[in-house]
């Protein structure tokens, strides 16, 4: 059946709407091959349709299959792009290695470009008032309180706070920190909120 593989590909994505899967190189290659094959068959038959009108339908069905394949492939890619965007907001411009491995090289390129475009935009914010840009990836949640209690999950090392104090983040230590300063660390999984 035409366009069967592409449906498998989309179903795969559908299964985990929240998380990103390994980029399915192999399947995409197969689909592209199928498309080339369909195209070749169509070219042959298209030349023959001059004499044989019965081939018209065949050509058209193959053409729809080609269109469908293209559309679904782009949808797959677009869907992944949206997921990669969320990664940028969650992890910042540096991806953890295990996540990085799930992306294709081209996708990683795209991520880098997206990331630097976003950074350029954020730097341009509030320049007239003397701010050096605003990091929009902070302040994702409405602030509830100024300080929160956090548990350190990993050995992180020294952290310098805005007011100049330096604290040592060791595994299993508890701290009472300003909310704004530990949001990123919480998202990176170094701190855990306990309240």
């Amino acid at each position: 059946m035409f366009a069967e593989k592409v449906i498998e590909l989309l179903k795969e994505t559908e299964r985990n709407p929240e998380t990103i899967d390994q980029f399915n190189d192999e399947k995409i290659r197969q689909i592209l091959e199928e498309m080339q094959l369909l195209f070749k068959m169509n070219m042959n038959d298209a030349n023959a349709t001059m004499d044989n009108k019965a081939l018209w339908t065949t050509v058209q069905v193959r053409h729809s299959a080609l269109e469908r394949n293209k559309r679904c492939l782009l949808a797959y890619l677009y869907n992944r792009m949206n997921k990669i965007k969320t990664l940028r907001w969650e992890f910042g411009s540096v991806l953890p290695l295990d996540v990085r491995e799930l992306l294709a090289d081209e996708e990683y390129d795209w991520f880098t470009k997206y990331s630097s475009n976003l950074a350029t935009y954020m730097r341009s914010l509030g320049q007239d008032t003397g701010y050096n840009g605003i990091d929009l990836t902070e302040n994702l949640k409405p602030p509830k309180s100024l300080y929160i209690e956090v548990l350190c999950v990993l050995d992180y090392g020294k952290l310098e706070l805005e007011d100049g104090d330096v604290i040592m983040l060791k595994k299993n230590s508890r701290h009472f920190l300003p909310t704004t300063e530990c949001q990123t660390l919480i998202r990176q999984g170094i701190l855990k909120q306990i309240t």
Partner: protein
Amino acid sequence: MDSNEDIYLSDNEEEITAEIVLKTLQSAWQNERLAPEILPHRSDMVECMLGQLQHMERNISKLPKTDLRASIHKMEISRIKFIICNYLKIRLNKIEKYCIPIIKDERQRTDSGTNYLTPSEYKYAQEYLLNMENHMKNVILNKVPGNMQSFDMNKMAEHPNLQTHVFLKAHETVNGVVLEDLVGEDEEIDLEEGSQHILQYKPIADLVKNGKVQLV
């Protein structure tokens, strides 16, 4: 800026303005969150509020760390910062999602001087679209058969759903809002000042943009 020791949000001649700025910003934020399409930017308000925040931060740093006032004002600052960040972020999300129609419309609007995006937002949108196009070309389009390699903007475009329904509150009386009906029977209604309605977004889009109604 003066060097007034008073650290309250509004100080001397800016007493009314700071409050109004915050209110305007809040309602712009609220509208932006609820409207399906992108609204004209209010970067003037954002800039102004940022300046105010900086002023507040400077004043707070003069207070001792344990001062109660300092923590109350810090809280206030982080609330305002959240509003600003969230406002800008929602705009970015819309720009990314609807970048093709937005860029197309924006080109015409820039010519007539009524642009909805700030220059840096516009730049961001263009760059975003370019990156998306290149990415799709690299991974898929360059590898499909010859006559299908085009990146068709019109087919790729995602449009905001202007037919969606919204809750709104009228700031002032507006007469003769025409509601289009699918059957072709148009209906005219009047919005009383202070009244609340549920309506389709499209007929009232202009009223939202010029501030006559507020989405709630």
